[in-house]
C-alpha cells in the first residue's frame, strides 16, 4: 500500500488527459465491427488444445456444441443436437439437427460428432484439458443423424460438459489436417468464422452468412470481431481511451473506477464463477501442527472481515461465500453449513484456548490479487497471527502445495466455467494432489455426488460434503471474484458469470 507505481500513475494520467481529449471517431461502430483487445494469445485456436479464457471465447464463436446452456435461466437447450435421452446410467442418445453446414461447406451429421468425441476421448491425442473429455468412453453412430455417447463411469454432469468445452469438428477436414491444421485454418459451424489469423498477434472473426436460424445462439448484427493480443494493461487502457479498441476485460478494479469518469466509455462489472478461498494444511506431515487444531482454523475464519473486503477491495458483483463452490453450480449450497461471522475477539479467544494466546507464526502462499492477500495478512495480524507471505507464480505455488510444504494458501478456482460442483470442490477435497485436508468422510460424500444419477441424491451428497468441510473448518471460503469490462459507451452488452462476452448478441446503439 502507498508504494509508488509508475504504471498506475501513467494510467491515471492517461485518463486525466483523455478527459480533455477530442471527439470520438467510433471506427468500430460505423462498420458494425467490434475491436477487442485481450492480454494473451491462445496457444491454439482449436478449443481442445488450449486452456485459456480467450480460447474459450473464440471457441464459442467459431464452433458449436451439442447442447447450449442458457446463461440466463440455466436451462439446457439443443444446439447441434435436436434432442437427447438417457438410455441407461452411462449412455445418452442424441438426435441431431439436419441441414447444418460447417464453414468449409461440409455437412454436419453423426459421423462428425462420433469422430470428434472418439478423437478427443483417446488419451493418445493428448487433448490439453483431459478433465473435459476423460469421462468419455466412446461414441457410436446409429444412423446419419443419431448417435450414442457412452461414459466410462456414471457421469451425471455429462450434459453440462457437452454444453461447454466439447465442441464439434468436421470429421473429413479434421482427419485430413489434424489439430495443427485446425489451428492454422479453423473450421466450425459457429456464428462466426475465422478469416484472418496472425499467430500471437491478432485474429479476425467474420459473421457466418450460413448460420442456422434455429440455433439458441442468435446471430446479431455484428459483422466482424477483430481480436488483438495486447499483454500490457496500461496499453489496453490507452487503446480504449484513444478509440483504438472498443472492448477490454479483466481491468483491475481501481483502474476501472478511474475510467468510469469517461463519458465515451462504460464500465460494467459482473460476478464470475471464479471463487477465492484459503486452504489450511491439516493433513499428516503438515509443516504447521497448529493447523491440525480445529479451533485455530476457526479462529482464522473469524479473523477475516470478508464483507468489508468485498465492499472495499474486491469490487462490485462479488459476494461472500460460506462454502467452497460457486453458488450457481449444480449441487452448491450453504444450507446447514455454519456461518463464521467476522469476530476478532472470538478468534483471539479460540487461539488462546488452543494454546496460542501469545500469537502464532504461519506461512501464506499466494499468486494473484496480491492486495487481497495483504488485507488478509492485516486481519490475521490483528488477532495475533503473523502470516509470512510468499508470493509466487502459479506453478511454483502449486508445486509447494502438492509437496505438502505449505501452511496457508490464498487460492482461486474457476471450474473451467463448468456449472456443476463436480468441477470444483472435489479438486480440493477429493484426495487429489491439491487436497491438503484429506478427510475420507468428505471424499466419500463428494464421490457419491460425482457418480449418482438422481439429481436429488447428488444434491444431498454434495450438501453433506460441503457442510462437513464448513463444520470442520477445513478452508476459509472467501468470495466470488468479479470481472470488470470497459467498452465504448455505444455498445450494448451484458456480463455473464461464465466470463464469456457473447459478441453474437451484442449491438451498437
Amino acid at each position: 500500500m502507498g508504494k509508488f507505481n509508475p504504471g498506475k500513475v501513467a494510467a491515471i494520467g492517461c485518463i486525466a488527459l483523455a478527459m480533455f481529449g477530442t471527439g470520438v471517431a467510433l471506427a468500430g461502430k460505423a462498420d458494425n465491427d467490434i475491436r477487442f483487445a485481450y492480454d494473451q494469445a491462445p496457444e491454439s485456436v482449436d478449443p481442445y488444445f488450449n486452456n485459456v479464457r480467450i480460447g474459450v471465447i473464440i471457441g464459442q464463436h467459431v464452433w458449436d456444441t451439442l447442447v447450449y446452456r442458457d446463461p440466463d435461466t440455466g436451462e439446457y437447450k439443443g444446439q447441434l443436437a435436436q434432442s437427447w435421452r438417457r438410455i441407461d446410467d452411462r449412455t445418452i442418445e442424441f438426435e441431431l439437427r439436419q441441414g447444418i453446414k460447417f464453414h468449409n461447406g461440409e455437412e454436419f451429421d453423426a459421423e462428425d460428432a462420433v469422430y470428434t468425441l472418439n478423437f478427443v476421448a483417446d488419451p493418445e491425442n493428448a487433448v490439453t484439458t483431459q478433465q473435459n473429455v476423460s469421462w468419455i468412453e466412446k461414441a457410436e453412430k446409429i444412423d446419419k443423424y443419431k448417435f450414442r455417447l457412452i461414459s466410462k463411469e456414471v457421469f451425471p454432469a455429462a450434459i453440462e460438459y457437452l454444453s461447454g468445452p466439447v465442441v464439434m469438428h468436421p470429421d473429413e477436414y479434421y482427419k485430413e489436417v489434424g489439430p495443427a491444421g485446425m489451428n492454422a485454418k479453423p473450421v466450425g459451424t459457429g456464428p462466426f468464422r475465422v478469416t484472418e489469423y496472425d499467430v500471437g498477434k491478432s485474429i479476425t472473426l467474420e459473421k457466418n452468412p450460413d448460420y442456422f436460424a434455429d440455433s439458441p445462439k442468435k446471430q446479431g448484427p455484428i459483422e466482424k470481431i477483430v481480436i488483438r493480443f495486447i499483454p500490457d494493461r496500461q496499453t489496453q487502457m490507452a487503446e480504449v481511451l484513444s478509440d483504438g479498441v472498443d472492448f477490454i476485460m479483466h481491468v483491475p478494479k481501481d483502474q476501472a473506477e478511474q475510467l468510469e469518469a469517461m463519458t465515451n466509455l462504460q464500465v460494467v462489472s459482473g460476478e464470475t464463477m471464479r471463487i477465492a478461498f484459503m486452504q489450511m494444511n491439516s493433513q499428516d506431515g503438515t509443516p504447521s501442527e497448529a493447523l491440525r487444531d480445529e479451533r485455530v482454523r476457526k479462529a482464522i475464519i473469524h479473523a477475516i472481515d470478508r464483507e468489508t473486503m468485498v465492499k472495499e477491495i474486491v469490487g462490485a458483483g462479488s459476494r461472500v461465500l460460506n462454502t467452497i463452490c460457486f453458488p450457481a453450480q449444480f449441487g452448491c449450497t450453504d444450507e446447514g453449513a455454519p456461518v463464521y461471522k467476522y469476530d476478532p475477539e472470538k478468534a483471539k479467544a479460540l487461539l488462546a484456548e488452543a494454546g496460542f494466546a501469545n500469537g502464532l507464526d504461519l506461512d501464506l502462499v499466494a499468486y494473484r490479487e496480491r492486495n487481497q492477500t495483504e488485507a488478509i495478512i492485516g486481519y490475521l495480524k490483528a488477532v495475533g497471527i503473523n502470516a509470512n507471505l510468499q508470493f509466487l507464480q502459479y506453478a511454483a505455488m502449486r508445486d509447494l502445495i502438492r509437496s505438502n510444504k505449505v501452511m496457508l494458501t490464498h487460492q482461486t478456482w474457476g471450474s473451467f466455467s463448468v456449472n456443476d460442483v463436480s468441477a470444483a470442490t472435489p479438486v480440493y477435497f477429493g484426495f487429489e494432489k491439491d487436497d491438503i485436508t484429506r478427510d475420507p468422510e468428505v471424499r466419500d460424500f463428494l464421490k457419491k455426488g460425482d457418480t449418482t444419477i438422481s439429481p436429488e441424491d447428488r444434491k444431498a451428497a454434495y450438501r453433506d460434503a460441503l457442510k462437513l468441510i464448513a463444520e470442520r473448518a477445513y478452508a476459509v471460503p472467501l468470495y466470488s471474484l468479479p470481472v470488470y469490462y470497459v467498452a465504448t459507451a455505444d455498445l450494448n452488452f451484458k456480463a455473464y458469470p461464465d466470463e464469456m462476452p457473447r459478441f453474437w448478441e451484442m449491438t451498437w446503439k
Partner: protein
Amino acid sequence: MTVFILKRLGLAFLVALAVSAIAFFLLRMSGDVAIAIAGEGARDVDIEAARRLHGLDRPPIVQYAAWLIETLRGDFGQSIFFKTDVLSLVWAKMPVTLLLGIMSLGFALAVSIPLGVLAAVFANSWIDRLALSLAVVGQALPNFFFALILVMLFSIMLRWLPVSGSSTWSHYVMPMIALGYYVTPAFMRLVRAGMIEVLSSDYIRTARAKGLPARVVIFKHALRNAVMPVVALSAVQLGYLLGGSVVIETVFALDGLGFLAYQSITHKDFPVIQAVVMLLSVLYVLLTLLGDIANAWLNPRLRVS
C-alpha cells in the same frame, strides 16, 4: 587479426552455451514446468500428460543434453505454446525487432551527436547542463514509464499516433523513441568527451588559426575524429537494443522477438525461450566482436596491443 576473430568466435559459442544452460536451469528452478504448461487449474491427469508429452519426467541434465544435441543439429524443436516450429516462429518475428533496433539506434545517434557536439562546444554553459539533464533523465526513467508518457501525449491527447501494433510505420515511432532514448546518454557523453579532447588538440588550433569558419572546424575536422568510438559503441548498443526490446515490444504490442520472449516466459514455453536467448546472446557477442573489429580498424594503436 584472423586469430583474434577466431578466438572471439569461439568465445561467442561458449557464451551462448553458458547462457543457454543458465536459462534452462533457471526456468526449471522457478517451479514445475509441467504444472505451468498444463495451465492454471489443471488437474492431475492434465499435468501428468504434459509431463510425459514434453519429456519432463527425465532428469533435468538429461533434458538439457537432449535439447543441446537437437539444437546443434539445427533442430530447435516445436513451440509448446504456439504448437509450431520454433525456428520459423523466431524467424518470422525477427524483422520487427531488427527494424526497431536499427531505428532506435538511428534515433539515438540523431539526437546524441548534435547534443554532444553542442555540449562540448559550449562546455560548462547552460546548454551543456541542459544536455546533461536530458541524459540523466534518459538514464533514470524506466523505459516502460517513458513509453506510457509518450502514449499519453501522442496517442491520447494529440491522437497523432496509434497506441499499439506493428502494421504501419507510424506504429514504430513511439517504440523507437522510447527504446532509443535510453541509449542516447551513453553516446552523448562519448561525443562530448571526444569533442572536448579533440577541440583542445593542436591540429584544431591550427585549423582555427588558418581562419577556417567554426562550422568547418567543428564538423569537418573535429567531429570526424571524435565520432570514431561512437561507431564501435553503436554495434554494442545495437546488441543491447535488440535484447532490451522485450519491455518496449510488450508495452506497444509490437509483434517481434521481444514480445515473443515475453509470451514464452509467461507460458514457460522453454523451446522458444531457449532459442530466443541463444539467438540474442549470439547476436550480442557478434555485435561486440564487430565493435572491437571496427575499433581496431579505425584506431591502429589498438591492433598493436
